[in-house]
Every structure is written in structure tokens, then in C-alpha cells.
């Protein structure tokens, strides 16, 4: 793992405390918007959306005893619905794990790390429609970096990060990368 400041690692725009505060705020926004925890289902998009969804779920459980992570948290792999599969070497599938009650007539909050072109979310909406009919679908992301290619917008954003499309945004999480940070680097980084 390279330290921030060394060449190629990129500039750190969010540190561990920023990530933590952003997730706490998102958790409260979700509750406020939904007027409580009833009918909520958090679905993290692997790889890094899943630990983010788990952390948001842990915060929801802290402030709302009515929230049950066992039945209101899951993961949604969207690989099979991507529109760019033929542009890259074949991708390894992630896990899709839905709560036993399913998603019908519940409010699904999709959780991902970075919102960029919007194509991942388009694929997630397609994947969801094969799994059931939620009452509503919302989107929570840690970073919105702009440059949308589809008419998609996030309901809950940890940090709006204006970037050039040549730049690279990298989210690191303790669960997958050993520490929490959001880095921006030049295209070559």
C-alpha cells in the first residue's frame, strides 16, 4: 500500500474521519427520508458498495432499534447486467444475497462507492427488476464525481467531488484495502 504523497498514489481528498462522518450523515438522511426504518432494504453493490452498506446498516441499527440488519441488508451483484462486458477480460462474479423476505413492496437503497457514468446503477436497476418489484429505489454513494452518461442521480451523497474525466478516483476501505481513504490521481496514476 503506497502512502499519500508518494508519486502515483494520488491526493487524499477524504480521510478515515471524513468517510465515517459521511456514512453517519447518509444513515441519518436515509432514516429521515424514509420516516423511520420500516420497509427499508440496503443493498450494497460489490466490491466496495457492500462494506459501505454494512457500515450504514450498523449505524442505522445503533440509532433505530427497529432496524434489523439480518433482514434489511444484502448485496446485489450487477456483473451479469453490465453493458461493457465485451470491452474487458471476463469479470469474476460477486455475490447476490437478498433478505429472505425479498424486496417486493419495500424501499431499496442501493449503496455504491463512486457514482460516475451511471452505467453501474443502470445495470443495478435492471438486476433489481429481475428480483422483484420494490416500492421505491434510492441511491446512496460515498463519492459523486460527475460525468454522467445516463439520466441517473444519487439521493444521498457522501461527497461531491468535481473531477476531470482524465483523473482517477480511488475509494479505499479497511475491509478491502486496509484503510479508509478517497484518493484522486492523474489518469496515469
Amino acid at each position, binding site marked *: 500500500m503506497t502512502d499519500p504523497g508518494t508519486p502515483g498514489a494520488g491526493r487524499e481528498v477524504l480521510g478515515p474521519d471524513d468517510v465515517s462522518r459521511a456514512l453517519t450523515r447518509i444513515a441519518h438522511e436515509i432514516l429521515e427520508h424514509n420516516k423511520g426504518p420500516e420497509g427499508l432494504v440496503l443493498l450494497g453493490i460489490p466490491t466496495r458498495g457492500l462494506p459501505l452498506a454494512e457500515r450504514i446498516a450498523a449505524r442505522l441499527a445503533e440509532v433505530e432499534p427497529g432496524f434489523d440488519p439480518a433482514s434489511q441488508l444484502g448485496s446485489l*451483484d450487477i456483473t*451479469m*447486467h453490465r453493458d461493457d*462486458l*465485451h*470491452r*474487458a*477480460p*471476463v*469479470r*469474476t*462474479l*460477486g*455475490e*447476490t444475497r437478498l433478505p429472505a423476505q425479498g424486496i417486493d413492496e419495500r424501499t431499496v437503497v442501493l449503496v455504491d462507492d463512486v457514482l460516475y457514468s451511471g452505467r453501474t446503477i443502470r445495470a443495478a436497476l*435492471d438486476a433489481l427488476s*429481475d*428480483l422483484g418489484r420494490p416500492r421505491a429505489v434510492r441511491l446512496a454513494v460515498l463519492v459523486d464525481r460527475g460525468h454522467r452518461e445516463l439520466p441517473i442521480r444519487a439521493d444521498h451523497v457522501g461527497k461531491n467531488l468535481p473531477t476531470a474525466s482524465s483523473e482517477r478516483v480511488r475509494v479505499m476501505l479497511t475491509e478491502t484495502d486496509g484503510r479508509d481513504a478517497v484518493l484522486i490521481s492523474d489518469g496515469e496514476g
Partner: protein
Amino acid sequence: MDHLLTAAGLSRGDAVRILDTAAELAATQGREIKKLPTLRGRTVVNLFFEDSTRTRISFETAAKRLSADVINFAAKGSSVSKGESLKDTALTLQAMGADAVVIRHHASGAPHLLASSGWLQAAVVNAGDGTHQHPTQALLDAYTLRRHLAGPGPIGQDLAGLHVAIVGDVLHSRVARSNVDLLHTLGARVTLVSPPTLLPVGVEAWPCEVSYHLDEVLDQGPDAVMMLRVQRERMSSAGGGFFPSPLEYSRRYGLDARRLATLPSHAIVMHPGPMNRGLEISAEAADSDRAVIVEQVANGVAVRMAVLYLLLAGGRREDLA
């Protein structure tokens, strides 16, 4: 991976990746909407020169669940019965734009010829060639073994430490050959049990043990017993000189209720189908709760979906370079 021709050609990493992919795809097959859009617009040709119901249907189901277009090409009633060569058939499929060709052929090596000749650019999947290989059967057997015996959370695991007995007509069995190769690659110990007349020449060089006595092997407490079909269509009547009579074969090498009772409590019974009930496996054994024979069929669809996904979903190597 450009083609799937033999089980021996798979590395441990390739094999585990196929099994992991199959595990995720199997989960999608329990849903109300089983179809995934992944291979939309791709064409899979099932090219079957030899009779097969379950393998062809399994591949057809797998391709359709991934939204590929499927063309079934059976040699009977086709231009092949008018004498068309494999080359001309391949050139026709190339002209039609096939992205994958699933081939079953009575001649060992036909899939290899199709993949290496340059006649067509499609990915070639061997669905059984002669007495040579049947890699997707070995993969679905490995998947079934891993699901039952590798403990909870089998993703990423191989079959290290398991002991599998493969019993019966090894000589005519591409299933046995493929399984010996793949299970060995995945770290399992394999014992072939067969009468000497039904073992191929050179079996001593295979990465497995060989025994002529089923009861002795069962006493070792194998984790799984795989019964092979006695391929009577490849023999003359009454065993064709390979064994004295069906009854004697059944007494010495058949899995019946008594032998089933000697197995360890966790052991599973497998059969690639179709079964000769009363010959290599008794009805009690085939219908017992140890038998995972019906589940093998379901797992076959998931494993074949995984193979088609891994061969067809990514960009072709020359386009990505």
C-alpha cells in the same frame, strides 16, 4: 480460456474459478426470473454427432438462461448424414456467425480438431468426444462434491483431502477419464474400481489408484462413490466378453443397499446418468437420501452457464490487445 477441450487442460485456478462462477449462477437459478441478459446477441451452436438428451438439454438450458441464441444441430437428418465432412460443417457454422460451438462426437479428438484447425473462430466446448473427455461432466461432479463435502462457504476452495471412488466401466468412460484428471488437479484422491477387463491399457500411469474389489475400497470409507454406467451399447449382448453376466457384474461391482449401509454417514452417491437400475446401481441406492444424482443434473446447468459465461462474456483477446 479460449476453449474448453479437456479436464486435464484446466489448471487448479481455472477450475476453482469455474466452480465459483457456477456457485453464483446457481443462486440465480432459484429465482422466479431465471434468465440473465449477459449473452444477448451471441449464438451458441449445439453440434451433436452422437445421441445425447441430458447433455444437449443442459447446454441448451444454460445458453438460453444467459439469453444466447441456440441452434441445435444433430447429425441425424442433417447434411452430415449425406456425407458432409467436419470441415465443411465447421465452415458453415463460421459463415452463420456462431460464437460458441458445443460439440459431441463419437471420435476422440474431434473438438480439438475443430478448435485448432482455423476453420472457425468460435469458442469450442467439448461435450464428450469418443472415449476421451467430457470436461463439463467432471466440472459438475467436482461442483457437486465441493458443495456437499468442502464445508460451509466453499467459494475459492478445492477438493483437497477428499477420497472419491469411481466404480464401473472405466474403459468406455470419458466421464471417468475427465474426473480423474480434474479431481486430481483439485487435490482429491481418486480410486478407480473396475473389473480388469473394463480398465484401459495404461491406466497405471493415471494420477489415481486402481482396485478390482469394490468392498475393499468401501471399507476405506470414501467420501463419495461415483457409479459409472455400464455402456452396453459399446458392448455386445450380455456383457460382450467384458464380464460373464450382468448378474455377476451387479454382485461384484453394483451399489446395493448392503454396500450403501457400509459407507460413512457423510458420503454421497453420484451417477452421471442415465442409470441402468439393477445393474450398476440398485433402486434402493439410487433413491436413497445419499444419492445426489438429480442434483447433479441441476448443477450441470449452472456449471455450463459458468463455462459459457467465462468463454463468451469478456472481450476476445485479439480485440482487447
